[in-house]
């Protein structure tokens, strides 16, 4: 009996370090695989950017290369025009929230009238482009990923290639250009609406007159605030469209795969947008912009 118990205990003792080693190995292996997948995904998205830019340049300089003005107009409507309502709504709320959040602190310093300055700078430099890009990642990015994913699953992409039609030129370029162009336009709208949101809140809640608010806003803002904001918006748009197109074009596994692509587009886009925003902020800060 004792002998049997000893053997069993020995087996248990010898098995737990092995199990620990196995589980550690599996965990480490999983992490390495995950990291490699991220690196691979970044590499593929970079390649997609290169190919997209190549086709854009080709279409500019070669007469026989076109990507379809109709397709571009259609995508601009889908990405931009259809997003205007939601961008206005969200940005109006952001303007109101900013004004109300800042008011008590500024009031304690006797600087309530500075609400307009802070709201304007925060909206134009940061929150206008950022919130627009995040809204667009959910609104247009997910839709692009789902559409392309469904096209992959229904063999439409394969059919394009079989007809010697390059899918990047035919599908990606119009989506990329439309997202970049329309996000800049949407960021301008977002800036204006955000400021109006702050103005209305300041007027009706904080008792600051619209004239005084607008004067402070004009004094606080300089051209570089707009330009840096719009440059950021353009880059965010490029990120959203590339991430969405990459996720859509690499869909595997039917409807589940399409669902996974849309979710990953939104998550990856938001992370990439905020990461890029941090990089931009650091660069602008270093150069005093």
């Amino acid at each position, binding site marked *: 009996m004792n002998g049997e118990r000893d053997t069993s205990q020995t087996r248990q003792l010898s098995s737990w370090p092995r199990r620990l080693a196995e589980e550690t190995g599996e965990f480490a292996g999983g992490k390495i695989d995950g990291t490699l997948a991220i690196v691979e995904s970044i590499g593929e998205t970079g390649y997609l950017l290169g190919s997209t830019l190549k086709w854009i340049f080709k279409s500019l300089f070669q007469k026989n290369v076109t990507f379809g003005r109709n397709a571009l107009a259609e995508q601009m409507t889908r990405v931009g025009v259809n997003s205007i309502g939601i961008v206005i709504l969200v940005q109006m709320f952001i303007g109101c929230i900013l004004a109300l959040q800042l008011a008590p602190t500024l009031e304690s310093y006797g600087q309530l009238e500075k609400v307009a300055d802070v709201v304007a700078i925060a909206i134009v430099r940061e929150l206008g482009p950022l919130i627009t890009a995040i809204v667009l990642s959910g609104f247009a990015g997910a839709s692009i990923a789902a559409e392309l994913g469904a096209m992959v699953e229904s063999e439409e992409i394969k059919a394009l290639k079989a*007809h*010697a*039609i390059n899918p990047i030129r035919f599908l990606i370029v119009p989506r990329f250009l439309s997202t970049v162009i329309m996000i800049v336009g949407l960021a301008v709208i977002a800036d204006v609406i955000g400021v109006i949101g702050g103005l209305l809140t300041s007027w009706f809640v904080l008792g600051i007159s619209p004239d005084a608010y607008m004067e402070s806003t004009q004094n606080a803002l300089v051209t570089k605030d707009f330009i840096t904001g719009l440059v950021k918006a353009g880059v965010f748009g490029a990120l959203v469209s590339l991430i969405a197109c990459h996720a859509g074009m690499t869909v595997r596994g039917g409807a589940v795969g399409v669902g996974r692509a849309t979710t990953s587009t939104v998550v990856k886009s938001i992370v990439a947008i905020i990461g890029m925003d941090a990089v931009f902020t650091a660069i602008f800060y270093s150069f005093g912009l």
Partner: protein
Amino acid sequence: MPYSLRFSIHSDSNSSDFALAKRESDIVISVRELRKSFPNDEGIDVNVLEAVTFDVHRGETVVIMGGSGCGKSTLLNCLIGEYRIDGGSIHYHTQQMECALDITESTEKQFDGIRKRLGILFQSGALFNSLTVAENVALPLKEHSFVDDSIIDIVVTMKLQQVKMLAHRDKYPAQLSGGQKKRAGLARATSLDPEILYYDEPSAGLDPVTSAAIDDLIMDLSKKLNVTSVVVTHEMDSAFRIADRMVMLDKGRVLKIGDRGEFERIRDADPRSLTNDNEKLINQFLNGYSEGPLTDAEGLSQFERLLING
């Protein structure tokens, strides 16, 4: 260059040599020792196609058949350049080409030139859902020809008339039945007047009447347009109706290549009278018997055999 692609004819050759050389010069697609593998869940490469070799001659209809998972679709994807192959060669020799071109060594631009001479009918039709039927058919013409829109419209009308889909020209793919989608897909596949037409499971998912109508359409197009057709299918009725020659695949290997008559002989033979293992296997497949070397090779368990045989 593969032996079958030596097209030179010696002046002192006799008539049979001349016929052979002429036959060889008629080769449009030449597949040699084609290999393709995919990694499994453990990352180990598993061979899906092993040393596949066959030729397709101008104007004939070749049916590639085999059970599920035998590598038919993979072979088709290799032929149309969707998959990069691991070994071997795929030569195309269309009428406008001076010599055969190995697509495994060609540039994307060179292969695009060949793609414009190919038409492909996908299993699902693969119509572009955002475009109408007419726009689907017009797309390859708009992309690859520089003719006026009014001429494209005339060509589209002709192509749709050919497949009896003119009445549905302004419908979107979502508004079409399975058979109509295949017809529209066929109209699009023939829009550039291809020399070679690939069909991926043309009868799959269709009722027998629609399936027969699609088969008639395939034969009609082959005759009228004088195209070379390669049909991937496991619908035996359809295969025997349309094939000039047949290629039987099993586990990624070519079991037999032959005329339709040869396969009909194997199909109609008593399995017990067949001595060749491959022929026994083909006989089982063609007749759809649940018992035989094909299912034995798949390693049915005793329990599965009991379930099938009762």
